[in-house]
Each structure stands twice: as C-alpha cells, then as structure tokens.
C-alpha cells in the first residue's frame, strides 16, 4: 500500500498535468454537488427584459434568448452532465465486465456467442446507433444514458475479455481453484480485481467521450427536453447564434464542456502512468 502511495506521489510530482487534471476533476465534482446551491440565479427563471445580453458584471456569462443567466445554467448543468457520463459509463462497465469476464473465463460457446454479439455491435456506426436508439426509445435522460452505455459496451467487453483470457490459467487463479473456490467466486474475487486498474484508464477516457456523445445527440435534436440546462444542448443551440454575434451562448458552455472532457482525458492518461509507468502513452 505504501509503495503505491509513494508511486502515486512520484507520478504526481513527475506529472503536474495529471495533478492539475485531478484538481479540475475535484472542482467539477464540487460543482456537481453544490452547483444548484451556489448558482447566482435560477437556471430556469426567464426574464424577457434582459434577453440576449452580453457578459457583464451582473451576468458573467451573459444571458440567453429567454433572459436566463448562462453562468447559472452552466453551473447547474454540471450535475446532469457528469451524471449522464457517470451512469452511462458505469452501466456499460458493469454489463461489459460481466460479459467480458464470462467470455474470457469460460471460453467455448459462451465466448463465441458473446464475441459474435459484440462484433455485430462494433460493426455499427456507433453514433448512428446511439441516434437510432434515442430516436426509437424517445429522447429522455434515461434513454440517452442507455444509448451511450450501449455504444461503449463493446470496448469494455473486449478489453476485459482479453485481460481475463491472459490470466485465467495464471498461477493465482489455479491456486484459488485448488482451494475450492467456485467459478463465479474466482471471477469476482480473483480475476476481476486484477483487471480493474486497466479498466479505470478506459473508464476515465470514456467519461469524456460520453459527454461529447450526449452533446452530439443534442445537436441533432435528440438531447434532453427543454428547459433542462445541459452543456451539449446549450452549445448546440448557442452555435446557431454565433453568426448573429451572440458568441457567449455557445462559447462558455462549450469551454466548460471542453474542460470537463479535457480533464477526463488527462486523468485517463495519468491513471495509465500510475498503473503501468512503462506504458505511459
């Protein structure tokens, strides 16, 4: 344990960027928890008298078409956006881990069936699959989460499968088996914890991608329902105002969205260093 800590400190010391990304992540998490409480205005209350005002001291990020404060909307949206990303990634992680571990451990027909299904999924253009799912199920937050989870599923299943495959005949697994552990127990307590660190890298990288995916869906009109504040939809709708000069509508939510994705990507990189310093990429 202490060596891990030392290693962590070493990596952070070596790598300020990861540290900064981690700080940024904490700030975002804090914003997700406190956002609604500390937002200067209500994110939903309209005021047509101050519609489309450029950034000022009263409204740092300006106001939108309905006179809502963009800063407050961006702050409040943090919870929803991180929530969508976390849930989507968690869902695909759990399902993918289960399928991947089964496929890798049991091999044979289990592996063949699961791999075939995953191959089929991989052959879909993923963004179109997400669009189709949301369009078919209806555009609600839950369905955006399901769609995002679905298109991430192949990644987790494949990575875990190959990791488990490598380890399934390793010494520690054999030892566990000889001491009378059942298949499920071996998978849950011996194999899975071993592949977890590798997975965390993908989880982190995936979080950023999940946010971008939700934003893309919003751009096509398949995002959350109004008047909910969500970064993607704010950028998507704000983007149509760029030409007419209301740049702040897209720029600020876009910048925050980028920061969040950026943060998860850098964290993923950092985690990779942590887990396997030689493999730093």
């Amino acid at each position, binding site marked *: 344990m202490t060596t891990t800590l030392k290693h962590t400190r070493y990596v952070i010391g070596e790598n300020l960027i990861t540290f900064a990304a981690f700080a940024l992540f904490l700030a975002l998490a804090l914003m997700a928890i406190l956002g609604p409480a500390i937002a200067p205005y209500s994110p939903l209350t309209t005021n*047509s008298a101050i519609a489309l005002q450029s950034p000022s001291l009263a409204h740092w990020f300006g106001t939108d078409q*309905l006179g809502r404060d963009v800063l407050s909307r961006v702050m409040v949206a943090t919870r929803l956006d991180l929530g969508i990303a976390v849930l989507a990634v968690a869902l695909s992680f759990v399902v993918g881990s289960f399928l991947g571990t089964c496929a890798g451990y049991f091999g044979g027909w289990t592996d063949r069936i699961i791999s075939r299904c995953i191959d089929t999924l991989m052959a879909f253009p993923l963004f179109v699959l997400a669009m189709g799912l949301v369009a078919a199920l209806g555009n609600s937050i839950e369905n955006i989460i399901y769609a995002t989870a679905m298109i991430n599923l192949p990644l987790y299943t494949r990575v875990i499968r190959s990791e488990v495959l490598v380890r399934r005949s390793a010494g520690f697994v054999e030892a566990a088996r000889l001491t009378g552990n059942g298949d499920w127990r071996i998978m849950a307590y011996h194999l899975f914890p071993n592949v977890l660190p590798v997975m965390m890298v993908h989880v982190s990288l995936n979080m950023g991608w999940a946010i971008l995916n939700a934003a893309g869906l919003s751009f096509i*009109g398949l995002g959350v329902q*109004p*008047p909910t504040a969500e970064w993607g939809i704010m950028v998507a709708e704000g983007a*149509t105002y760029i*030409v*007419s000069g209301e740049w702040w509508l897209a720029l600020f939510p876009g910048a925050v969205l980028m920061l969040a994705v950026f943060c998860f990507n850098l964290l993923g990189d950092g985690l990779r260093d942590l887990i396997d310093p030689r493999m730093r990429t």
Partner: protein
Amino acid sequence: MRRRRLIKTSMGLVAGITLANGLKACSSPEAASTDTSAAVGTASGGKPSDAKLTMVQGGGFPNSLDLHRVGTNRPAYGISWVMYDRLMTFGSKELPDGSISYDYTVLEPELAESWEMAEDGLSVVFNLRPDATFHNGTPVTAKDVKWSYDRAVSIGGFPTFQMKAGALENPDQFEVVDDQTFRVKFLRPDKLTMIDMAVPIPVIINSELVKPHLTAADPWGAEWLNANDAGSGAYQLSEFQPNERITLTRFENWKSGPLPQIKEVIVLNVPEAGNRRALLEKGDIDINYELSEKDQKELTAMSKFTTYSTPIENCLYSIDMHTNAQLKGAENPFADVKVRQAVAYAIPYDAIMETALYGQAVPMYGEGKFEPDSTTWPQPTPYKTDMEMAKKLMAESAYPNGFETALAFDLGNKEWAEPAVVLIQESLAQLGIAVNIEKVPNANFRSVLVEKSRPMIVNNFGGWLNYPDYFFFYAYHGQDATFNGSSYKNPEMDKLIEAALASEPGKPDYDQNVEDFIKLAWAEMPRVPLVQPKLSVAMQPSVSGYQYWFHRQLDFRQLQKA
C-alpha cells in the same frame, strides 16, 4: 372593409403550413370567364438579361422534380412552379406595405390563352397557345394536357386528393377537342373547380417524352419525372444534384408570359441557418428565403438588404388542448372549459411575441371581443395575460390544485416554439399546472397530430383559403381532421361551420354564422391562438421583384437582378 366581401364565390381547400403545401386560392368564375384576353401579369418586368441568381432557403431542399410523387416536399413546389406551366395562373396586386402579392381574385392565362365557360356552367373550354412548346421543342397539345390531368387524378396520394377538392376526379372529365382545345366537364357546379386548375398540382407534362419510360409498375412515369424535366415552363433544368443544388436556365422560347429577367437560377442546400445568414451577409448568395424571426429582425435592422415579411394568410400559431373527457384511458383536465380559459389567460403573450418571435408576427390576442362583430380572419382573441383571472377560473374548475400535463412541439419549429413553450411552462406553473415539455422530431410530429395522443400541442396550421369557414372546418369541426389539435367536437360548432361553408361571403347568413362560430371558439377555447406568423425573405439590394405566393415559394420568373 373586407376584400372578401367583394368576392362572389369562394373556393378552397386546407392544408398544413408545416410541410407539404400551403396554398389557397379563390376567385370568381364570372371574373375568370370574362377575362379571356391574353393579358399577362403585371408583376414581371425588366428586359431579359444574363443575370445569375443564387438562393438558399429554410424549410428544406427540393426533394423531387415531380410534385405528384409521394413525399415531395414543399420547397419542391417552387421548382415545379417555374419548370412547368399550368393552364391558368393568378394575378398580382400591391399590399398596403408596398410589397407585391398574388391576387386570388384574378385568374390569368398561362398555357391557355383563353377559356370560355359553357352556357350551363358545367364545362369549360381552354384554348391553348398555338406557339407554346415544351423544353425539347415539341409543341404543347391538348393531348399532353389530358395526359397530365389524367395523371393528377389517377396517381393517388396528395395530387389526387387536391384535384378531388375541386371536383376533378375522373379522367372522363377531360376531353381533347382538337390539338389546341381542351375541355373540362364538371361533375357538378363547384366553386373550387376553376381555381383548382391554377394551383401548383395540375402541371402540364410533355407526355410523349415520358411515355417511353412507363412500365406496368409505374404507369405514370413517376420514377423518370422525379429527376427529369418534361415541362414547358419559363425555366428548364440544367443540373439536378439531389440534396446539393438545382440549376435552372431560362427557357428562351417561353410563350406563356413575359420572358423572365434572370437567366440562371441556382438553388443551394445549406442546412444550417447560421451558415445561410453568413452567406447572405458575405454576399455569396443573392437570396435567403424563409428566415427565422430573429434573422428577419436583425437583417432588416442592418438595412443592407431588401427584406420582405408578409403575414401568412389564414395561418395561426396556437396552443391546442385536448378536449375529450378521456385521454389514453385517463381523465383529461382540459375537458373542463374553465381550465382551458384559465390557460388562455395565463399564457405570457407579450413575452412570447417579444422573445420567441422577436416581434416578427401579427399578435392574435387581447384585442378581440367575446362578441365578435367582424368576420375578419384571423382575428385576435379577447384573451390577454391576466393571472388573477386565470387563478380565479382555475379555482372554479374541477382542478383547483392543478395537475400534471405535457406539451408537445415539433422540433422543426424549435426556433420559436421552444422558447414559447418554456415561457408557457413557467407561467402555467403559477396555476399549479406542471407542464412537461416534449420536443418531437419533425417526422414524428405528424403521427402526434394524427393520433391526438398528447394533452397539449403547439400547432401551426394554416388554411389554404383565406376564409374563416375553411380554417374552422379543419381546426374546430367534429370531423376531427388532423389539424383539429384539440380533437374538439361540438355539434353546435359543426352546424355553424357547415352553414358558413354552404354560403358565401357577403351574404348575411354567412357573416352571422362566422361571427357565431368565432364567438363559440372564444368561449370554449379549445385552442389558444398566439400569433399569425410571417413569411420572410432577405435579398441583396440588387435583387427586386419579390412577390408573395400562396404556395410560399419564390417565383423566379418575377425576380430581377441588376
């Protein structure tokens, strides 16, 4: 003084403004039958030049050259309108604001240089222009006209439906007298028949050119006409790249009207509204058509461009509330008239007008009377934002504590509808009505309209004919047409509407019935009218000659470019 009082007979049809069509027309058969000179439109002017016009438009890109095809969209009507001729067209007039509009009281010759009504009023004979030719040089004959009319009434779907509305139902009605003479026999006297022959649908197609492409599966050459030109109109097709661009070139041998000034027209597909605006501002295109309200306001304010904004005849943006007692097996609060009235008082009209529509529409609230004394349509309702009144009505209703409901709108209208519904949601929350907003992709919204499965919807229905009875027939009548978004059924209302339909403007009973059904609508309030929208265009200053048409597409023949 209402112009419709001047007109003896009305004719009409209705359709939604949302998609395929918007067209309205009316005229007097007497006027048409006496107007047999070869007079030509007054709107056109300017010597033919080598000018090249580039345009983009909102609302989609023409998806077919054949407007009889299933699924042909509204922008395609603009191409068909200039590539093909019809027997007759409409005149034009100046509107109070100085802009030019088509004139539905005047039918003018197009491919037919004259026509005579039979003594008994049960048929009409058209004399075709002897010198008119199709784009490939073959003369236009009555045989082509008959084939085209036969196609329109036989091909099924929308064209057949449209022809039927003018009592043009059967190929037997169309008779080739000789090469230059074509007779249409009427099934019955119908005020719509003549008008229906000047709307976009009955285009005259070069039948000899199509015939080699007919098959048993495709007896009307739909596949070939979809991407090929068989017209005699002022412009011929020079390039058709689906979903990218359409290039039209002036047909120098056009005889059905004065030769257009512009030689070449390029229609480009630019899906992003922001890019369309940027292109206009940078001077890369000449015309940006069907602007959003915001662009209209701001481009006009720049005073760098020629802009026009015409209220769309007989069209209203409204909030429709489902009026049946049950909805999807559950009790429906909007069946309670007090609730509907409360909603009508709670809508933040001015805020919607200002922030959602940027002031670019005609307000349809507040100024009206509960006892209407005019048949003007559309006319404003007597409801204005009055939260006290709304709360009082809610307290008197069966739902004093409010309820939860949903409001659906078409994603295709999101530019104005989304801010509007958010404002409405906020306002209704004060009455205890919790509104969930549901944005529905454009294609699915039609299903929402047909199923009538939502408690509240945003409707943008427009009647083709500028008559209240036609609007009400589709929006308030118990036949429960697609556009009766409230699924409103009231025998008393039906009686008034039917009586008005059977009569005509200027007759005392007509006026009485119209005023009565408007009164009933204001009392019952199944739909809350918000505004009458406008159709807007912004053009480079070098372009002139814009004319508003009922089909809501540009008529390139009348445009000029310096």
